[in-house]
């Protein structure tokens, strides 16, 4: 972050995407988070992903609740509408917004307090509904804005800044999403942009609810010795199993990988995600195996990262509802009203 606003002029040499836009065109207003905050790296990754996708900025809808993480939706893609709603209830805003217009990209940014405590119910039901959105949790195990209380994702034995030890078991959003039928479940680390950017693109392209739980250390309240969400701890204990590369329809898979290391998953828009498996035995399309694998590794204190599970066949919110292809906020009144003649027919049975 920086307290000096950058001028809005692009250097002619800045690279441009298919729309002729530079990365600067996908930035937002200046971050007001602490210097070194993991969340700012996530913001940068989202900016990068939107630029790489050549997304029209107004096509992105940015939704959030309350907390440090939720502020970040102001810090990227200022050409897209943002809605900083109420604590823990962004998923319901997303439900309505997605119902109204199925043609936009929806990204929700939340934190571990916003998602796993006050918003746990709404989070669970957004997964069940399989809303077509990318839901990012910037997970740091701590309440930042209220200065350092444990959150529901704090690990047993993790120490607060003043030495207090957490004794309650954590709620793991990735395991939760797997049990609730999540159709795209990933974990990443704010310090690993190479892993995070393709995951964000794949999550936005996935038809249905894409969760990325991003371990995003809080430099001010949870980056000390004894914390299991510090930069040092996460770097030491994190292990990628499946990385994702996004492949657009026209692009060919050119990189060469050893057999058994890669697998391609076709997305609904015709593009593919190329999965690079760092553990050849791992199958991200098998929900039960994914769950067991995660559980086992967690018991050894390891954070498994990457695209942990994907199920592209799961019907999304609009498929279940059989919503018409036109965004319903663009239907004409004539398409919606049965007219006076219709009313006469309707009322016949009330005589």
């Amino acid at each position, binding site marked *: 972050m920086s307290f000096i606003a950058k001028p809005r002029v692009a250097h002619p040499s800045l690279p441009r995407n298919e729309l002729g836009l530079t990365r600067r065109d996908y930035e937002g207003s200046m971050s007001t988070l602490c210097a070194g905050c993991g969340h700012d790296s996530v913001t940068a990754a989202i900016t990068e992903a939107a630029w790489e996708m050549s997304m029209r900025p107004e096509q992105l809808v940015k939704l959030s609740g309350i907390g440090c993480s939720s502020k970040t939706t102001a810090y990227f893609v200022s050409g897209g*509408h943002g809605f900083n*709603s109420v604590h823990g209830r962004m998923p*319901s805003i997303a439900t309505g917004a997605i*119902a109204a217009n199925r043609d936009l990209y929806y990204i929700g940014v939340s934190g571990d307090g916003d998602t796993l405590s006050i918003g746990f119910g709404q989070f669970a039901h957004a997964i069940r509904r399989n809303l077509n959105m990318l839901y990012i949790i910037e997970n740091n195990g701590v309440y930042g804005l209220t200065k350092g209380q444990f959150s529901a994702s704090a690990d047993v034995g993790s120490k607060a800044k003043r030495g207090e030890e957490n004794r309650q078991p954590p709620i793991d959003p990735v395991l939760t999403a797997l049990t609730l039928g999540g159709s795209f479940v990933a974990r990443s680390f704010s310090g690993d942009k190479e892993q995070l950017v393709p995951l964000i693109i794949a999550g936005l392209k996935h038809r249905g609810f894409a969760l990325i739980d991003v371990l995003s250390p809080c430099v001010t309240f949870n980056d000390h010795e004894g914390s299991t969400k510090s930069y040092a701890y996460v770097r030491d204990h994190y292990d990628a199993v499946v990385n994702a590369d996004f492949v657009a329809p026209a692009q060919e898979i050119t990189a060469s990988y050893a057999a058994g290391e890669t697998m391609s998953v076709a997305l609904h828009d015709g593009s593919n995600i190329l999965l690079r498996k760092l553990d050849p035995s791992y199958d991200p399309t098998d929900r039960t195996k994914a769950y067991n694998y995660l559980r086992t590794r967690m018991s050894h204190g390891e954070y498994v990262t990457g695209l942990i599970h994907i199920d592209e066949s799961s019907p999304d919110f609009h498929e279940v509802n059989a919503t018409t292809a036109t965004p319903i906020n663009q239907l004409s009144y004539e398409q919606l009203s*049965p007219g*006076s003649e219709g*009313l006469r027919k*309707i009322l016949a049975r*009330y005589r």
Partner: protein
Amino acid sequence: MLHAADSKDRINDFVIKLANVNGTGSASANTLLMKSIFRMGVPVMGKNYFPSNIQGLPTWYEIRVTRDGHVARSGRVDIMVAMNAETYARDLKDVSPGGYFIYDSTWPRPALLKRDDITILGVPLARMCNETFQGVRARILLKNIMYAGLLGALLDIDLDVMRTMLGESYANKKALLDSNVRALEIGYAYAREHFTCPLPLHVAPMNATAGHIMIDGNTAAALGCLYAGATVGAWYPITPSTSLMDAFKSFCQKWRTDPQSGARNFVIVQCEDELAAIGAVIGASWNGARAFTPTSGPGISLMNEFIGLAYYSEVPAVIFDIQRVGPSTGMPTRTQQCDLLLAAYASHGDTRHVLLFPNSPEECFYMAAQAFDLAERLQTPVFVMSDLDIGMNDWMCPTLQWDDAYRPDRGKVLSREQIEELEKFHRYRDLDGDGIPYRTLPGVHPKGAYFTRGSGHNQYGAYTEDSAEYQIVLDRLQRKFDTARALVPPAVFAGTGTQDIGIVSLGSCDGAIREATDLLARRGIEVDYMRVRAFPFGPEVEEFLAAHSVSFVVEQNRDAQLRSLLTLETAVDKAKLRSILHYSGLPLASSIVVEGVLAGVGRQPQRLAVTG
């Protein structure tokens, strides 16, 4: 006596009350009775007093046959059809002198059923059913149709009309139709054979229901949503609002679904709770769809936080509050007007909301549609304050009309072209002096993008903690509320406008008050009547209160919430407002209003009738 006892005067002017056990299928028999009378051209009123239970608890249905077209309870019971032995004692007590008590004499109860001033008619309904029909369930269900047939003969209801109605109900179920018609005819024949038919109080054909329908307020409100072009309904089931979304869904399935592809031009989301329901409404409205949620008091309590967000970030939302008895869970199947203050000032901080007060299913229809126009014009939540009595009872209403020239008022939403022409878009500036800013929708133009927030913001839409910038927005919201005053439906008046005494009321009290003003006039007490139809109050409300030396404020809650709103929001002298409060959970009866006014003007508060 309020009603003449002369039996000649009682033709098409009496009350039938039917006491049943919940879950035994009595509703269809009671509807059959009421609608048959309606189809004979005679105005009727029906009220269902049901328990919060699926099966086993007592339930009552009241049919008022009213040649003068009254729409409220009178407070009398002329014929009690007592089909629940558990409640015989209280049902017997309820019958007005000169009335009738009909019960199932398969099990005679001569010791219990004693009253000299009424006529007791025993009919062996269960025995006749058991002799005619097979199966426990069929016998229970058909006993109801049998008493409908019995009443048909006693009250001179056209048997052909009743048969036709059954034919419509069981159009594709021949076996069911046959057994129902048989039960009807057995009851009818029994009455003709054993009693002098018709009774002195009975039905005679009229021509006073042409151009009318029988409809409940929730169905009418759902129709209003359909015609307003609402596309997103989000809700959590709660009595007594559930039937609103049920109706909306069935209308949409018929009229908004492509018959070939099955594609739907609507989205209905049954949410995990009311918090999510209002969140989805706000999300959808923010994104340019017309969205609504039906709920009741407990739901509004839960929605408070989001309602404040919608108020402050200026997002339209339409909320139907089908009020029920509070506080807390209260009595979910009883009616009250107890959420007025809750809705008017819902949420923390300085918030005030637009409320509409329909008096009938007819107004539920028109006000539902109007609520969307107001919400989008004013960019704020709008509440339609219905109640259980309006929402769940069938009311006789003039046939609903729709003007095909209607087009939704989407308010100040900038198009792509309009945004293109702007140098810069500022979300919360008052450019027109009416307190209403311009809005943009997501996906339209990058220059129209802004950040919606419930935290402090300035008129340009940016975050602020600056006192002056914050106050500019808050003061404009107040101006916007003043603009609403002129947009909401004005109060309606009855009477000469020159009287000393006023009656002020709202919503479902209307029918009882209109009848009461007639009854009072017959006693030489002339009053003027004002029914407020919306909050904020317009200048006409202030003028009425100023012009009357005393106004009786009639409402269905304990705490005089309308009176409180009037004293808070107008300059009226509090001492001039006297309350007539009814909060038993039953719909207001005209007798209660008459008694209240009589007592208030120092007349002997004569007991007029048994009151609820």
